[in-house]
């Protein structure tokens, strides 16, 4: 690839694949060794008044943002045009919905981060990896909101769908367009790079609780019965954390 530096290759090709690798292997590791640590780690017991507003607003805002990323980044521009959505309509919709999500997330994250840092009972439960996660999240949120509000809503817009999105989808088809992302405005670049760091951090943080969203509760019978099973002895060298051999039922 001409005109692309080794550094750019590292950040826009190596880093994403590395992060994805850590994401996958890390989750397998965590699931096998540390289901006991796999929890949402709620602090509602310690503090409820701020959580009452912060947690729902933040989570619902995040769902909206995730939906927006799926539409904007995963779905190619040609598709939306093919089903008859003209560019101005798309642009208007993404700016308005994006801003709404941004407002929700800002309110939510300010309440939650403030609560975590300022309420002593909550702060006492915060671990190093929580702080790292929080900092990265704040970075991703800030660099995600700035272009949404100031470029797409108030400014004259930037068509990330022909640049950032092309590179992102290229990662999964094996031919990432490095030049497309490397020439995007810096705020998009920071957003994307920090997001990859979050993917790499994901399996080791409390973010794993996202994969446990208990949707099947809607269908299962109310009362769960289980019969007694023997617990296997801990595998040597795991200090009691369990390693289950694949295909060995118990």
């Amino acid at each position, binding site marked *: 690839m001409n005109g692309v530096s080794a550094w750019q290759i590292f950040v826009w090709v190596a880093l994403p694949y590395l992060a994805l690798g850590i994401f996958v292997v890390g989750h397998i590791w965590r699931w096998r060794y540390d289901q006991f640590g*796999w*929890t949402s780690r709620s602090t509602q017991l310690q503090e409820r008044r701020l959580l009452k507003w912060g947690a*729902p607003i933040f989570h619902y805002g995040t769902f909206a943002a995730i939906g927006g990323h799926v539409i904007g980044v995963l779905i190619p521009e040609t598709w939306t045009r093919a089903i008859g959505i003209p560019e101005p309509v798309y642009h208007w919709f993404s700016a308005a919905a994006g801003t709404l999500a941004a407002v929700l997330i800002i309110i939510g994250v300010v309440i939650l981060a403030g609560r975590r840092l300022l309420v002593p009972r909550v702060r*006492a439960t915060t671990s190093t990896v929580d702080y790292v996660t929080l900092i990265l999240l704040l970075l991703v949120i800030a660099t995600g909101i700035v272009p949404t509000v100031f470029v797409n809503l108030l400014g004259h817009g930037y068509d990330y769908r022909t640049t950032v999105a092309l590179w992102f989808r290229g990662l999964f088809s094996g031919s990432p367009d490095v030049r497309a992302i490397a020439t995007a405005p810096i705020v998009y670049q920071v957003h994307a790079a920090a997001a990859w760091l979050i993917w790499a951090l994901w399996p080791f943080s409390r973010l794993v609780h996202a994969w*446990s969203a208990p949707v099947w509760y809607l269908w299962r019978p109310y009362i*769960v019965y289980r019969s007694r099973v023997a617990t296997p002895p801990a595998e040597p060298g795991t200090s009691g954390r369990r390693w289950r051999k694949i295909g*060995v039922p118990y």
Partner: protein
Amino acid sequence: MRVMAQVAMVMNLDKCIGCHTCSVTCKQTWTNRPGTEYVYFNNVETKPGAGYPRRYEDQEQWNGGWTLDRKGRLQLRAGGRARRLLSIFYNPNLPTIDDYGDPWTYDYETLIDAPPGKLTPSAHSISALTGRDMRVRWGSNWEDDLAGGPESAAADPNLAGLGEQVKLAFEQVFMFYLPRICEHCLNPSCVASCPSGAMYKREEDGIVLVDQDRCRGWRFCVSGCPYKKVYFNHRTGKAEKCTLCFPRIESGQPTICSETCVGRLRYLGLMLYDADKVTAAAATTDPRGLYEAQLSVFLDPDDPRVRAAAAAQGIPADWLEAARRSPVYALIARHKVALPLHPEYRTLPMVWYIPPLSPVADTVSAAGYDADDPDQVFAAIDALRVPADYLASLFTAGDAGPVRRVLRTLMAVRTVMRARQLGTGDAVPAGLAAAAGASMADLDDLYRLLAIAKYDERFVIPPAHAEDAGRLMAQHEQLFCAQPGGPDDFHPPSGEAFRDDAGRLHLGLSPRSGS
């Protein structure tokens, strides 16, 4: 008929002296870890009182347990499944740590390290949550022995239905202890509330447990349990609850709270019940009918049809035998002197209580009468709204009838045995037993159970059938341990000092032969 076995408990409240030995031994066994400072799988409350956590019995506030929807079907009081999933980020019914009391310790170092001086140093209370100084405002046992007086006791939700005058009357003469553990309910709302499916009721013995590997900390079980007997471990972020000491039960031993109970007032044994009838019983329309409805779910272990069905469904013969000898079955179903705690929560609880006669006797003697005269006590049981109404709001959803019947039976046992001891048997009024709805043989049997039953009559617990588990363990040992290089694959030469591969010297202190 789907026969299932349940390990159940009965506590005889007349004998509880409020010593909290049960809470202490339970805590030492299960919850003496960081994160569970405030957790009491067993706690002893003074009644009347607000309880632990504060006012947990007020389901208007906490929305625990079940209720009936407009069509009369059973529904979680906190709302349907979709509604709970939507409120997963903030559970509106969860008590906070202040409802339990911020757990604290003391700054003992000040006492130890204080320099010589005129003033005696004092230790500060320090929050176990933050490590900072704090003011202690509430905790388990805060109102032990009616500490806090009428102000504190007035927070008892069971007083809501009683009139002002009645309230005053019993503050002067009335107090008893209520030891509480998880009820290991037949229709557990904690299990039904858990979105992860991490909580379950064991098929073999009905013990309700939390799978620590599958709990994701959604904390609906804590608010779903009307007795507030699931707790949130604030260090691990997972729910924990009374385990009915399942490792002890499995090996045929009583729970640690029962084993160490100073008053020897706890009974453990099997109840057989028809699992097909549970839901219908829990959906009984009139809350006052729930006590009878739950009784109708239990099966008579002496009934040959029940025994045949149980055997066909794989309940082992020694378990059936234990069910027959179960002291719990005798107290709950045969003599009907034990009552469930708050049946109106519709969870069909399985720790039952023999209501205390002492408040009545106290009232009678406070009024200047002879508390040993059955006529006067019987009259008092019938005439007094307190304590029968109060006990009824605890044990029978407000129906004083069963409470009065039980108190009469207890009084009859007392009178007959007293007369026998004093050799004044003739003085016992004829028809005393009949007035209590019992035969003389019943009274004898009750006397034996309540007064003199020894350890192995109070606790009839068949050990678990762990043959299969043993086989599985052996298999795993094969898989993990006996492999070359595994921990069992280490055989020092007998009796001699030797050096291992890493060059360390080993002394052959416990020689193994033949290797």
